[in-house]
């Protein structure tokens, strides 16, 4: 009966329904947006379609208001919270970046300490620049063979908490870009026992809430807040996201924080995409993600049968720094065929018309989701087989190490706003960096504001540039110069 009630409730999509009703009323618009249901911009309407333009409307009574939801958006948020098992859910229209920042800004003030792994997304450190909190990094373990950062070990988190009893929160990637999970439940307990909040970056974890045999989700593990990228594995439109909170966090406070930076003109395209995707996941998520897991497992077997490549999976699990693994992730280690991941990534795009999520120094990641079919997987596997046949080299001389231990000299905010000067890369050794340097994707900083620049880091940046990684962060777009503290 419970299940039946759940299904009945989750079959609704209040924002979608309200937009349908709104369309039928044929309301005459004397309000913004100025394209007036598309009539004022025929070229754009032809490109995006009349359907799409007619629901690109302003907040109004029948459609509620994202800044202060009381009717259909509120209902959609309640259904979202129920589907995710959260105390409350906020629909977000500024990407998961805004969800992550709201999470940090809701819990940290200037000077507060926050415990987090160094392989966080740039949005987390951006939030520290905004609020002036101080990062306490837990060095993630590195898998020597794969050259990727893993999860946080329980003992390392416990040590960070012991050494920083005044910290206010612990942030966890659940999972990392590569699909690796820490022991979230244990970390939540440690944080709560020490009176700290536990925050989860679940940009890559939407499906943990809906699939079977998945790693534990943040809300199920008892975390206090989680930023969830519905637009990644959940199928909603790019830039739509969800922020979840548990019982210990005040909904009103978080809403105020969100409203500090979020637009007052929330897009109904984004909000309806969240509403419809949530309904789909709640009703059909199990089935959908079982299919994705089957595809990923099949692809792993086939890629490993090609030889040279290593498509890794659950066999990596070690009970601590790899507490669990997301089975939908298709990450492939390429170093043994003598090619950097980024080189395979470029070959796939330039020669085989296959676009994958990213390539780094030693690995590639192909993103599998709701929208994939086996016939395209066959293309990917065959293209990888071809790349090996045509391009394989001696792996000697390829860099493998991906993680470099940072030395934090001052807070990201202090460094970001400090007096600085621009220096050629090689002359910056020993100085304190005032900006980010990262490969994007995955968007995990190599250098963050406030960190000391070492020879090792400079070697790594030059190597990544040489191999063709797309580098971002610094003011100088060519990354020949870097800003350092005076």
């Amino acid at each position: 009966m419970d299940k039946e009630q759940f299904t009945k409730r989750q079959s609704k999509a209040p924002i979608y329904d309200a937009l349908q009703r709104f369309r039928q009323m044929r309301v005459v618009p004397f309000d913004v947006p100025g394209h007036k249901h598309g009539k004022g911009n025929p070229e754009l309407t032809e490109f995006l379609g009349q359907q799409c333009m007619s629901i690109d409307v302003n907040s109004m009574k029948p459609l509620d208001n994202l800044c202060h939801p009381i009717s259909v958006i509120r209902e959609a948020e309640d259904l979202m919270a129920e589907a995710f098992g959260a105390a409350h859910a906020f629909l977000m229209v500024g990407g998961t970046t805004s969800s992550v920042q709201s999470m940090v800004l809701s819990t940290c003030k200037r000077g507060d300490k926050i415990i987090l792994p160094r392989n966080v997304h740039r949005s987390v450190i951006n939030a520290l620049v905004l609020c002036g909190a101080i990062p306490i990094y837990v060095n993630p373990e590195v898998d020597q063979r794969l050259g990727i950062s893993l999860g946080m070990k329980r003992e390392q988190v416990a040590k960070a908490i012991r050494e920083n009893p005044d910290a206010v929160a612990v942030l966890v990637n659940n999972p990392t870009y590569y699909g690796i999970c820490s022991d979230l439940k244990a970390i939540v307990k440690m944080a709560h026992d020490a009176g700290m909040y536990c925050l989860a970056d679940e940009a890559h974890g939407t499906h943990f809430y809906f699939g079977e045999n998945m790693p534990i989700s943040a809300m199920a593990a008892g975390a206090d807040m989680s930023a969830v990228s519905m637009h990644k594995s959940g199928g909603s439109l790019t830039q739509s996201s969800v922020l979840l909170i548990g019982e210990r966090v005040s909904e009103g406070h978080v809403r105020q924080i969100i409203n500090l930076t979020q637009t007052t003109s929330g897009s109904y395209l984004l909000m309806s995409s969240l509403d419809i995707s949530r309904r789909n996941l709640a009703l059909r998520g199990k089935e959908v993600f079982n299919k994705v897991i089957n595809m990923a497992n099949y692809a792993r077997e086939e890629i490993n049968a090609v030889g040279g490549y290593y498509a890794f999976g659950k066999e990596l699990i070690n009970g601590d720094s790899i507490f669990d693994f997301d089975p939908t992730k298709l990450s492939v280690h390429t170093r043994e065929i003598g090619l950097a991941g980024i080189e395979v990534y470029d070959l796939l795009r330039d020669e085989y018309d296959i676009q994958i999520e990213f390539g780094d120094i030693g690995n590639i990641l192909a993103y599998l989701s709701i929208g994939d079919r086996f016939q395209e997987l066959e293309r990917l596997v065959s293209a990888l087989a071809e790349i090996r046949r045509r391009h394989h080299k001696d792996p000697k001389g390829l860099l493998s190490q991906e993680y470099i231990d940072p030395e934090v000299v001052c807070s990201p905010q202090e460094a970001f706003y400090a007096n600085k000067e621009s220096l050629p890369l090689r002359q910056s050794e020993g100085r304190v960096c005032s900006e980010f340097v990262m490969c994007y994707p995955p968007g995990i900083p190599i250098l963050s504001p406030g960190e000391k620049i070492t020879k090792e880091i400079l070697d790594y940046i030059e190597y990544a540039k040489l191999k063709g990684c797309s580098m971002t962060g610094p003011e100088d777009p060519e990354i020949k110069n870097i800003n350092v503290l005076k």
Partner: protein
Amino acid sequence: MEFWFSEYHAPDVKHSMRVKRNLFSQKSEYQQIDIFETPEFGKVLTLDGNVMLTERDEFIYDEMITHVPMSVHPNVVDVLVIGAGDGGVVKELTRYEGIKRIDLVEMDPSVTEACKQFLPDIACKLDDPRVKIYYDNALRFIRRKHEEYDLIIVDSTDPFGPSEGYFTREFYGICYNALREDGIMVNQQGSPFYKHDAEAMQRCHKRIVNTFPISRVYQAHIPTYAAGYWLFGFASKKYHPVKDLNVERWKELGLETNYYTPKLHVGSFCLPAYLEKMLREVE
């Protein structure tokens, strides 16, 4: 009552045939399969509404895709055929006694079943003991093969449907890898006439040129295909399609054909100027 089947050959061009009666309609896992009878073209097989073959002009396609490589390669023993679930290509291949093995990889068993039932004159040799049918994705099948075949014939549908994967660089690459050192790959390469087809044909040619040392295009007149004008690709590791044509050897086999002749073989590689230009652009 008049009953017509129409197919778009281009967004503003249609080709229509009067239909006597519908014989078979089924939506398989991959595509919509229909077989119907027409007064002019006899029985017609369509997939997703695109004509695959008609009884009337099937011989042109099947002869040209088969006898051209068979008269060039001196000793074809192992053949791989992709698609071609209708059996037309296999029917021509089985006429060669030198061939010892024909592996047919078809993605959709429903096509083969329907053709056996409704087009028995074309599907007649699918039961030949040398023929083995694999219902599998061709990419997956070929990936596991290394220098195993003398000839690969790619008889796919057009590049905008379920056969999209057979027009890709990775596909031609694994075919190359599955061929012996003197192997030949022949594929249907679409039509150069209408814009949409022409661009796909160019892309396809470019990818084959990048994969095989010898790559030539040849032509045939096929009334029910777009513009009535169709191309095939001849890609080879060693043999040249015209210089290595062995007329005497082929004639000794005594095969009777209705379209193919050794003379026409040579002529089919002489292309109109606009087509030569299109091919040069991507070579």
